[in-house]
Structure formats: C-alpha cells, structure tokens
C-alpha cells in the first residue's frame, strides 16, 4: 500500500471538503448572494400569493441596484421581483436563477448587461458556488437552455475559494475592512440592493459590437421557453454612465446591440437608450445606481411594462438605417437625441 499517496489523497479530500463547507456557509460573497436569493424568493412567493402573477427582472449587478419592486407595485401596480445577482456568477446561473419560479401569466424582463451578452458564456466558480449554496447544483453542471453545463468533476472541484478570494480576504481581515462590499441589511424586501456613494471610474462600461454565439443561443431558447409556458418576455437595457461627449456614440452602440436582441425577443423602449450621463445617479460604479437613480430607472421600466411599449426588430432597423443616412447631420448637431427623431 503506498502510504504517502493515501495520506496525501486524504489531505486533498479533507481540504476540499473544508473548502466546500466554507463556500456553502462562510464565504462572505456567496453568503450575501445566497441571502439575497432567499429574500428574492420570499418576495416572489408573496407576489404569487397576493397577486397571482408577477414580473421578474433579472441581470447582473446593474439590475440588482436599479429595479425597486416596492415602487413598481405601489406606483404602477405591477408585482415585480428583482432577480439581479452579481455578474460574477455568470449569465447561465443568473438566468436559471430567474426562471426557477416563473409561472404561466408571468412576465420575464431580461436586463442582462450587453457586455455580458457579447462575450462567450462560461460558468465561473462563483456561479458554481452559488448554485451549490442555494441547493441548485444542477444549474452548474446540467446543460439547460441549449447552453452546455460545467463538466461534473470540475464543477465539484470549483467549490474552493481560489487565490483572489483567499488573499483579499486575508487583506481585509488585516485591515479590519468589511469582508464583502454589500450587506443584506442594505437590501429592500423586494431585493433591491443599495450602497453609499464611493468614488469610481467614469468610463462607459461598453460592450462588443455583436452578440456572442452563446447569447444568441440563450435568447432563442428563452423565447421558446417563455412561449411554451405562456410567459411574456422582453429585454430592457440597463443604465450605464457615460461622459456627456460620449453619450451619442454610446447610444448608437446600444441601438446596434438592441437591434440584434430584437431579432429574438422584443425590446422595451427606454428614452435614455441605456445611457444616463448624470454622474450623481451612480453609487460605487458606472452601473450601480443610487437610490435616486434607482427611482428614475424603476419609473422608466414601470411605464414601459405597463404600456408594454416595445421596439420590434423592424422598428429598430429603421432607426439604425435612418441614423446611417443622417450621420453627417447628426455629427453637426450631436446634442439632438436620436430617439427624438421618432
């Protein structure tokens, strides 16, 4: 019997088990998202109980910081669940997390950041870990919505902190800083997360020019999934900050990506075209809105959902075509918003 080999194997298994336990119960980031997910679950059940239908909005952290379910309910009478999660969990997990309690008659609003939709999808370790800690480990390894799952063994082995988490955690402990930037105490009953202002960059987050193959696959599968279950679906562009002189350029880029999305699902109208250049509406990043920013964004979404005010692919194509024809004129008067032309 190779004794050293057996001992080292035992050490590896014991360490992995300790890491998995840490991930499930003590990892501050995963713990926060698990608690947030539970809070969203509770709100979702309440909406189902009291209204029989609901609107589920999901996306990355921009969604987490922007859509206020209470405001949607009180002001527009729309029972809404904010299913936003950190972008670090990956699009696959954030989508499956949003679909878990959708029923016939519900509405699904996809508000995933375009930056995530123009990149190939992978299930990052955080996604695997969140799936594990919320009791939905199958999200990580089972192929769903036409997207490949994580192979099982690598998924199991992903239940570890990794160097970035381990070293930054030690740094935070040494400096006495909070172990995670956000707390569940700063979260509303409906799942809206808020955070105080912190200095942040001023760069528009941006995105690639084309939807990735994975994003096309996902949007097509979502359309079919929702059609089968009689769930209404649309895309709503999250807001992001851009410097005033960049606004028109950023809007044009957003229109291009919205046109591609509209080929799969309708796109909710937004007068801002996803670009909000008012710096004081952002808390700690160019996509995380403050309370006031969230109020404005929720209003915008509430009106659009209430009226089901959507762009079809043809309408968006017309805007993009007209923009190309008007380009020289628009350059001369960049202050004229594109949407006012319609």
């Amino acid at each position, binding site marked *: *019997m*190779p*004794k*050293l*080999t057996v*001992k*080292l194997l035992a*050490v*590896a298994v014991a*360490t*992995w088990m300790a*890491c998995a336990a840490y991930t499930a119960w003590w990892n501050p980031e995963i713990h926060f998202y698990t608690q947030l997910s539970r809070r969203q679950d509770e709100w979702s059940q309440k909406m189902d109980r009291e209204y029989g239908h609901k609107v589920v909005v999901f996306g990355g952290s921009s969604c987490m910081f922007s859509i206020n379910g209470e405001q949607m309910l009180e002001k527009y009478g729309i029972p809404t669940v904010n299913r936003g999660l950190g972008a670090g969990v990956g699009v696959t997990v954030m989508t499956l997390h949003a679909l878990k309690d959708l029923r016939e008659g519900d509405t699904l609003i996809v508000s995933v950041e375009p930056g995530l939709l123009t990149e190939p999808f992978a299930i*990052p*370790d955080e996604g695997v870990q969140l799936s594990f800690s919320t009791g939905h480990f199958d999200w990580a390894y089972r192929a769903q919505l036409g997207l490949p799952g994580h*192979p099982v*063994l*690598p998924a199991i*082995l*992903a239940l*570890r*902190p*990794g*160097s*970035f988490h*381990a*070293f*930054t955690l*030690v*740094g935070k402990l040494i400096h006495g800083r909070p172990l995670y930037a956000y707390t569940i105490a700063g979260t509303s009953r409906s799942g809206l997360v808020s955070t105080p202002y912190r200095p942040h960059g001023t760069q528009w987050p941006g995105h690639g020019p084309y939807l990735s193959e994975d994003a096309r696959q996902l949007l097509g599968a979502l359309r079919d999934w929702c059609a089968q279950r009689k769930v209404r679906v649309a895309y709503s562009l999250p807001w992001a900050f851009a410097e005033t002189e960049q606004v028109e350029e950023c809007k044009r880029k957003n229109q291009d990506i919205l046109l591609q999305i509209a080929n799969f699902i309708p796109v909710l109208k937004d007068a801002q075209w996803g670009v909000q250049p008012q710096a004081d509406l952002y808390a700690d990043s160019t996509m995380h809105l403050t309370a006031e920013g969230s109020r404005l964004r929720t209003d915008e979404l509430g009106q659009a959902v209430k009226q089901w005010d959507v762009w079809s692919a043809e309408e968006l194509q017309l805007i993009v075509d007209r923009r190309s024809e008007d380009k020289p004129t628009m350059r001369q008067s960049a202050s004229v918003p594109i949407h006012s032309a319609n």
Partner: protein
Amino acid sequence: MNFAEIRFWELLFAGLACILVLRMLLAGANALPEWFDKTALLSLGLFLLGCVSWLTLSIFLVVAVGTYVGLWWVLQKDEARRWKYLFVLIPLQFLPLFYYKYANFAVNQVLNLEMGFLRGLVIPVGISFYTFQKVGFAIDTLHFRKPLPRFLEYLNFVAFFPQIVAGPIERRQNLLPQMEAFRFRWLPKSIDEGIGWIVLGLFFKCCLADNLALHFDASSQTNAYRIWLANVVFGLRIYYDFAGYSLVAVGLGRCLGINLTLNFTSPLCATSATEFWHRWHITLSQWFRDYLYIPLGGNRARCWSLLVALVFVVSGIWHGAGWNFVLWGALHGGFLIVNRKLGPLVRLPAFLAWLLTTLATYLAWLCFYELRTAVLFTKLGTLFHPTAYGMSALREAVAYLQSADSLVLVCTLVLAAFVLILEWRSLAAKNEPYALLRRPKILAALVILTVILAPDKHNAFIYFAF
C-alpha cells in the same frame, strides 16, 4: 496531454484501469503474454496523444516510423558510409518541424514572399521535443554503434506519454534500456515517490504559475519599474510552469517504474550564467552541447565564443520563430561568453553573483515574452534609460501595486520567493534542490495550498507552444 486539466487525469485513470483489469483477467487465465505490458503502455501513450488531436498523433507517427525505417536503411550501409546517409536522414526528420514551426517565419518574414497559407499553420503539440529526441536517438545509435531496438520498444521510447509533448528530451542510453525491461509493477515505494513529484509539480503549475499568469501585465512600455515587474513575474511563471510540467512527468514516470531525467534543478538559485544553463531545461542544453557544440569543436575550438553564440541563437530559434527569440538566445550566449571570460578573473560574493545572474536572466525574459519587435526595443530602451527610473515612475508603479489585484500578485510572489528559499536551502544542504519540498509534511502543506489557491482559469503550459 495537459497535466493541469482534469480531463487528462480522467483519461489516464480510465486507461490505466482498463490495462489493470485486462492484465488481471489474462494473468488469472494464465495467458498473460510477455509483450502485453509494453503494448499496453504504448497504446496508452498513443491514446492520450490522439486525445490531443488526430493531426498531432499522425505527425508524431510519421516522424517516429520515418526515423525507424530511415535508421534501419542507414544501418544496412557499410559502417564507413553510415554517417553520410545519416546526414540525409536528419534533415528528413527535421522536415515536419521546419514546415510547421519555421516556414511562416522564413518565407513570410525573412524572405518577404507573402505566402498567406503558411500564416495559419498550427504547431503540433510537442513536435520540437519529440523531433529532437528522435534525432538524438539516430545519432546515438550510430555514434555508440548500437543495434536498432525492436520496433515496440523503440515506439515506447519515443511515445512514453509523460514526456512526449514537453520533454524531458531523453537519450537512448537512459530511457531505452528501461523500456526494454518495462513491466507494470505498481510498487508502493515507486508510487509514493512519484506522487511526491506530481504533487510538487502540480503545486508549481496550478498554484504558482497559473496565479502569476493571471496577474502578468506587460502593458507598460515607459515605466521601467513596471517592465521589471513584468519580467520578474514572467520569469517566475515560466520557471514554475515548465518545471511543474517536468516534475509531474518525472512523477508519472516514477509511478510506472521509469526514471526520467530531472529537467530543472533550481535554476533561479544559480550564481552564474553557466550554472543557470546547467540547471535550466537540462536535457535541451545537453542536446545542444552533445549534438551541436561539441561536434563543431566545443571548448577546444579557437573561436569557441562564436560557437557559443551560434548555439544559443539556434537555441533561441528552437523556442520560436521570431526575432525576439533570436535576440533572447543571443543575449544568453553573450552572458555565457562574458561569464566564461571574466569569471576566472573576477571573484564576486555569492549574493552579488546571484543578483547579477538574476538581473541578466530577467532582462532576457523580456525578449522571450515580447513578440512585437518594435515594442521590445522600446521597452529595452526604457530599461536602459536612467530617467525612466524617476520618482514619478516609482509613484506610478507603487500606485499600480496598491490595487486589490496586485495584492494577490504580491502574495503569490511572496509564496514563490518562499519556495525559492526552500530550494536554495535544500540545494545548500543536500545538493538536491527539491529534497526539502518533497518532505511528507511539506507535501501535505502543498496539497492544501494547491486545493485552496489554484485559480479556476488554467493556462496551457507555455512550452506547449514550442
């Protein structure tokens, strides 16, 4: 054949399990043929290589069979004329390597002939390594007047899976006799020893090299401190990456009862350029020494310094088809010449000698990773410009190091430095650089560190590209 991927281990264990079961069944029926173990080992090697890609396996087999047949043909000739025929065989052995690795560089960059189809060529994994091993085999067979081995044993010699894609480049006299006597013995002592090497190799690769790779940032061209930092990060990364691969290869070999050559013996502790090359990629250095440097005259040649320069430029080109690799080789050749000329005249304290050697090797790594020639010269210019070391550059570098990402980099560098200190202490005490690191308690600590700290993104081994 990426040891850092779980898929490799799944395939390996599946293959070994099949062999074990089949072997037990045959042994139980008293029908275990003598050739079974060797055939099974060869099948496993070819299966694992085939899993990389069928093209890789096909080219490997073409070079392997071509070498064997060619050598058989050479050995049919009169002894006096064999060397002439060998000079026909060797270029044929090198042909696939030249085509896949150098045709684009030679035709499009050096000769400016603009043949677009050559740009898309993908270098088959391991071609540089197994071509060199097969060329060495052919030369040794003639030089030592050895007979041609049986085809099965020859194939096992060239297709031994732990070393097929990234070395060590084994010699006939070391590996072939072991292959001729090969049996699956599963000795606990060998497995324990092998696992020690594998744990150390995986720690080097998954914990150190992969974490350093995540934080390698070569974007700065004007800040000398940041360029030096990138050089240091790259230097450590490539060492832990390649040494990690080699140690896993040694470990897998030991588990199967095969002793492979240790390709690295703590080169970053070297106190001279000569010592560095005695410790870095040892089997390649020995190949160049025995098959190029010595046949051209070696140390006894009047123009030995020219020979050293030539050998190192060729060594640079072996690493990749690009001017940066030529410069990298030339720089190392230059360091070696200076070292050999000045070494006997100037006696430096050990620490100063180590510092100078380290600075020189880290400077040269810039030429290794920076593939854009114009940017490479800009960076070299920055490093040699005193004003690039001003206070504003220092402040910028310090600010860069204060981000959360850099905290991880700094911690990984500290861990890497600690490992180097252990290597150095082990080298000083036992003249074996990894003895301390292979102590059972330290191995257990390395297992824990690897499980906790290995990032989710694994990079392919750097030397797979060569």
